[in-house]
């Protein structure tokens, strides 16, 4: 076929990206977040290249003579209650919040998405799955995560599992709701009239069409997962000292809040900025993916 006769195709995804780009705040947030992810990722590379020597020497090793030193040119974020560099600790801490939060949400998306798709599509499964989800939803997220960590023991994997389980019902609900709407669309009936199987209808028609609320939910959920990790670490059930997790840092620092503001404000600000960015991106995505707001 002649190239020139073919019109330029713009898929809904490309269309959404075009609209997302117009939202400057969301693009800015995305850039900041990507930078944070990059920085967090680079710590793995540094640890691998230096055999964790920088981590051992600067992030963990205490220097009690210089404890609680305020921000200076040498240490822009100051030193903490054990004389460790706050900037490096915040940078090394990003990996826990970001990657564990993402891992938990990724798992919850798969599990919740699968359960939601099944209960939206098959009426008989709906009641059983959704009542189970209701039970999980009835318990406050943080309480549920606390209970799971307390039962399984404190480790990174258990922390991810706890947050994954507590996030799953939200995803199941979101996916089920959009599957229920999409299922009634005429193009599903059209596919059936062609002789398409249930599996094909779910994979080719229902999932692509119920993706947008799921994507938005994902971004928002990473924010709340990060908050959960920080909260659990704050109460001592998450990441254990001396690992520099933001919530744990905040928790340890609160004793010194009257004398040294910087060691509480800095990890708190790191948590806040991350969550704010994620929420702005989530809002931007929702606007970009919602065809009703399309101009």
């Amino acid at each position, binding site marked *: 076929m002649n190239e020139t006769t073919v019109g330029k195709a713009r898929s809904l995804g490309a269309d959404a990206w075009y609209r997302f780009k117009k939202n400057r705040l969301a693009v800015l947030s995305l850039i900041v977040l990507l930078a944070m992810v990059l920085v967090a990722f680079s710590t793995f590379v540094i640890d691998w290249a230096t055999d964790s020597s920088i981590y051992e020497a600067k992030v963990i090793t205490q220097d009690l003579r210089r404890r609680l030193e305020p921000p200076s040119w040498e240490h822009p974020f100051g030193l903490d209650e054990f004389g460790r560099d706050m900037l490096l600790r915040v940078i090394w801490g990003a990996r826990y919040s970001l990657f564990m939060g993402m891992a938990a949400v990724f798992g919850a998306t798969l599990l919740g998405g699968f359960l939601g798709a099944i209960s939206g599509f098959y009426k008989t499964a709906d009641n059983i799955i959704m009542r189970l989800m209701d039970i999980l939803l009835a318990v406050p997220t943080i309480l549920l995560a606390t209970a799971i960590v307390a039962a399984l023991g404190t480790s990174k994997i258990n922390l991810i599992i706890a947050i994954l389980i507590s996030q799953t019902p939200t995803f199941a609900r979101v996916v089920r709701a959009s599957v229920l709407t999409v299922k009634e669309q005429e193009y599903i009936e059209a596919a059936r*009239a062609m002789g398409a199987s249930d599996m094909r209808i779910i994979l080719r028609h229902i999932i692509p069409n119920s993706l947008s609320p799921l994507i938005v939910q994902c971004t928002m959920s990473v924010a709340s997962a990060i908050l959960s990790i920080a909260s659990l670490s704050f109460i001592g059930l998450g990441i254990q000292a001396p690992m520099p997790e933001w919530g744990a840092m905040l928790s340890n620092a609160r004793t010194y809040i009257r004398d040294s503001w910087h060691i509480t404000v800095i990890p708190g600000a790191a948590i806040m900025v991350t969550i704010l960015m994620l929420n702005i991106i989530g809002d931007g995505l929702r606007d970009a993916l919602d065809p009703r707001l399309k101009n």
Partner: protein
Amino acid sequence: MRIDKPLLQVKNLKKYFQTPGGMLHAVDDVSFDLLPGSTLGVVGESGCGKSTMGRAILRLQEPTSGTVLFDGTDVTACSKRELKALREQMQIIFQDPFASIDPRMTVSQTIMEPLIIQHKMDRRDKKGLERKALEIMELVGLAPRLVNSYPHELDGGRRQRIGIGRALVLRPRFIVCDEPVSALDVSIQAQILNLMQDVQKQMGLTYLFITHDLSVVKHFSDEILVMYLGQMVEKCESKRLFAQPMHPYTQALLSAIPVPDPRVRMQKIPLKGELSSPIEPPVGCRFAKRCPYATSACTQKAVLPREIEPGHFVACVRAGEL
């Protein structure tokens, strides 16, 4: 009239729905034959079960009882696999071109999908599939440059052409057209109807044409079936129905067609009351409550269609005398 063997034979087709108030009789005991290459128009007001009937024939909704013979095969008794094979020969065109096309698929993907589902062509044969899609697009009057467009970029008329293309790509013999033009502008309606008539001639298609627009059906159908509350009230050749309607409901319906001439005074037959409920309807003629000619005989027992003259079926107790 031709003496071919009918392509489609519908016998005592029923589709009931369970509702909190009782059984809803959406389609009640409809029977008809459809000859190959002909068009049967199905008319009736909204909610009378026209669309449900079309879907029950294709088993997009399971019929409650009755049989549908397609070229001798009983559609209602088919297994899943047999049904899938049959779908190749019976297709449907939907009313709303905005709802019936997957917004995430391009024009060519939508048109090619039936070929992939029915294993007519290898899904990896991208070139061949695209050639086929372009062929169909040309047939339904879509410019080749739209091949990679998404439905939201197109207007209603073009979308409906996609819907028609999708129905035609498997080269079916029978198509249920579920109000294919009622969602379109009047100017585009004519184009789409012409297109449908052209492909019918080219491919020898048989249509079951569901509509509430009498002026459309008049020019389009060989035969017309009038439905009222799930039942067939009258069926005969199109010309004869317009010249000589026998059922009081058909008469009222035809009298409501506007005449595009301000000087002509229309002789409308006003109907009293509303459509009665299709939930657990009483015995007898369902139209009796609104019928100006109703007698006590109308509500005593079920009124079945009678052949008043050859090929002209009327379900009315007083059919001969009115």
